[in-house]
């Protein structure tokens, strides 16, 4: 199919200023790390080194936790309505500097600017606005006054939506009166560091928000630190299991938002063109680096050929390339390591006997890239149908009856999200009732809102983020 050529429309990166080296944000200011080890954060679209980031060690984590403990003294005496105002101020400031954040996010993480600009940043600001308003309404949120903040919360976030995951964690934690030690992902720390600058700028009391950069070793120090009363983690199921294991004898709070292998069920009475759009958005949004991605397409057998034909045509129109180009649909794969993982799983799928379709397109000569991919002729036992690929790879399975669709959809350890496409309302409700998933998108996919709870069933974790339910992740029942 012919594709119209677009002229490049590159968002300028002159708006961001990146320092060559960063310390941690502790006690209300940036400080020199105790650790002498650094890692380089690179742009996955150019492989250019953007900055050096400290790999926080035990002493750095100690300082941050102690700062958060001190911060708790101030924060717990701050009137809830005043806590709210700090969060409102942060929301406003994020809106004002939204373009800067969006460009930085796309540079550090590789996501298309149209997503960081039109999705991530508006959602970040909206989360701070939403949770700000809860700060002085906690006593009426669940009809009980017996719930109190945990205290010092350790938060570990992933690289797929760096600043948005920060917002999902930090906004509710602060609104409910906790103080925070946050560790951003090692490949995408820059927007979190810029966020710390905003905290300084609005005069957030010292110690209320602390940031320690680093890798898995830093995360492990945080998870095992005796001074924290609650851990909130978003990331892979394997690391989630490590964290639950590490909690051990400690009686602390834990919420886990882990992996997924969501089924996107398309019934034969669906509006097919809409469903094609939804399926494309479901898997190719953010290069498929989405824990709730609709990575298993479940097609009713009689529409398989027609649907796949439409889907391949639509996929071919996706534009892969420079994340800062406003026309780009698919940006860079976040890291070399992730690219290798995706490549290896896809090769395995081909060897298993899956039929692979990849779009034809030129890929930039440097950086990490993967063509949008679709597997058909797949058996449910193949790894590509079971494992979370976390990339732009869609796997197709077929079913004959609604019962079978539900059975296949639920036949996984995961239970984060699912999609249902049909024009019949009763079938949507029947299916939604039977799917083991925390979020179900019917005739839509990958929609998010601060007021809408997000989180999984089964091995996709426990606890919810967002909405009134999200408050419960940061409040414990006083016995």
């Amino acid at each position, binding site marked *: 199919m012919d594709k119209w050529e677009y002229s490049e429309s590159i968002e300028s990166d002159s708006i961001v200023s990146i320092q060559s080296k960063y310390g941690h944000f502790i006690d209300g200011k940036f400080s020199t790390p105790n650790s002498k080890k650094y890692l380089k954060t690179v742009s996955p679209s150019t492989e250019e080194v953007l900055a050096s980031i400290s790999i926080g060690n035990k002493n750095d984590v100690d300082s941050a936790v102690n700062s958060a403990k001190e911060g708790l003294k101030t924060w717990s005496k701050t009137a809830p309505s005043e806590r709210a105002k700090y969060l409102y101020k942060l929301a406003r400031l994020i809106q004002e500097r939204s373009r800067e954040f969006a460009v930085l996010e796309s540079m550090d993480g590789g996501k298309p600017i149209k997503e960081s600009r039109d999705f991530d940043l508006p959602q970040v600001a*909206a989360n701070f606005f939403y949770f700000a308003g809860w700060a002085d309404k906690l006593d009426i949120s669940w009809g*009980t006054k017996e719930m109190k903040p945990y205290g010092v919360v350790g938060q570990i976030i992933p690289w797929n939506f760096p600043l948005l995951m920060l917002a999902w964690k930090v906004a509710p934690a602060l609104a409910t009166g906790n103080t925070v030690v946050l560790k951003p992902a090692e490949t995408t720390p820059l927007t979190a560091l810029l966020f710390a600058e905003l905290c300084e700028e609005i005069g957030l009391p010292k110690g209320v928000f602390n940031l320690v950069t680093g890798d898995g070793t830093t995360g492990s120090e945080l998870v095992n630190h005796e001074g924290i009363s609650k851990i909130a983690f978003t990331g892979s199921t394997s690391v989630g299991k490590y964290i639950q294991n590490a909690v*051990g*004898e400690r009686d602390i709070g834990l919420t886990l938002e882990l992996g997924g292998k969501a089924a996107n069920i398309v019934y034969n009475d669906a509006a097919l063109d809409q469903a094609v759009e939804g399926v494309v958005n479901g898997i190719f949004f953010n290069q498929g680096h989405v824990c709730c991605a609709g990575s298993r397409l479940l097609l009713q057998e009689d529409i398989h050929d027609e649907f796949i034909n439409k889907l391949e045509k639509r996929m071919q129109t996706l534009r892969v390339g420079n994340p800062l180009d406003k026309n780009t649909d698919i940006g860079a794969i976040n890291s070399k390591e992730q690219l290798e993982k995706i490549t290896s799983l896809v090769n395995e799928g081909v060897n298993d006997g899956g039929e692979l379709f990849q779009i034809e397109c030129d890929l930039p000569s440097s950086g990490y890239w993967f063509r949008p991919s679709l597997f058909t002729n797949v058996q449910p036992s193949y790894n590509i149908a079971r494992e979370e690929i976390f990339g732009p790879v869609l796997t197709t399975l077929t079913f004959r009856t609604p019962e079978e669709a539900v059975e296949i959809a639920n036949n996984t350890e995961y239970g984060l999200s699912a999609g249902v496409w049909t024009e019949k309302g009763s079938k949507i409700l029947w299916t939604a009732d039977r799917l083991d998933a925390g*979020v179900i998108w019917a005739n839509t996919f990958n929609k998010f*809102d601060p007021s*809408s709870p997000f989180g999984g069933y089964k091995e996709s974790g426990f606890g919810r983020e967002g909405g009134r339910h999200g408050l419960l992740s940061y409040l414990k029942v006083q016995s």
Partner: protein
Amino acid sequence: MTEIKKTYKNYVDGKYVRSESGKTYTIDLKSESYELPLTSKKDLRDAVTSSKKGFDSWKGLSQYNKTQIIYRLSEMLEGNRDSYVDLLLEHGLTKSTANKDIDNAINTLVWYAGLADKWEQLTGNLNPVDGEFFNISHQEPLGIVFTLNSDEVSIDKLVRSFLPALSTGCSVINLSEKNAVLSLKLAEDVNNSDIPAGTLNLLSGDFSKVYDDVSRHVEINAFASYKKLNKEILKTINENASTSVKRIFHLPSEDGLSSILPFIETKTVWHPKGR
């Protein structure tokens, strides 16, 4: 005439059963000693198998029906209150404490009976999302829950160790240790209350003999302990639970809406609005 002493057995799948191991342990009350089943790993597995079936049966009933069944259990306790008071006296409670305890237990049952068809309204809501979408969060029971009763001699504490999970639609395997006579006595009323077989399994024994299996069993979705656990046991439980991301609740709330929150999953459904 020789008095006939009652034999207490585990209550699993709607039947009274001995431990397959044949092992028992002794609970000494004031005038008599009782030999109770010492629940084994195999007994636990049987209870889980039964609980799976019990979960489906319980889920198949309307909330209105569940309300009536739990209320029916309170009626059974009321009808047999004298025998409960006698048994509590046997445990060493004073008459007034025993009477108060059975009153409390009945009131607790009535409270949770009334909650069974209301908790969804108290915990779910529409979410005011941006854009043209209908978005609702509602709740579903977690599945099969294993609960450990406290060692307090109290029918009220006993019922509070399974009602929060049961009233939301979970099936419950409940283990009592030192006060298991009370639990296995209650099993008789549970059996007469129309609670489906397998929905509530009541076991006696020593938790230290089964906690490893309880926390490892992938078909048990959650574990809640109403008894304070020592650090060593808690550590093993968390470690085992992590292999299947099992939900662990140590000393959860025993009353009010907060008591049921551990046992429900939030499901959020989106749909566009349009013409």
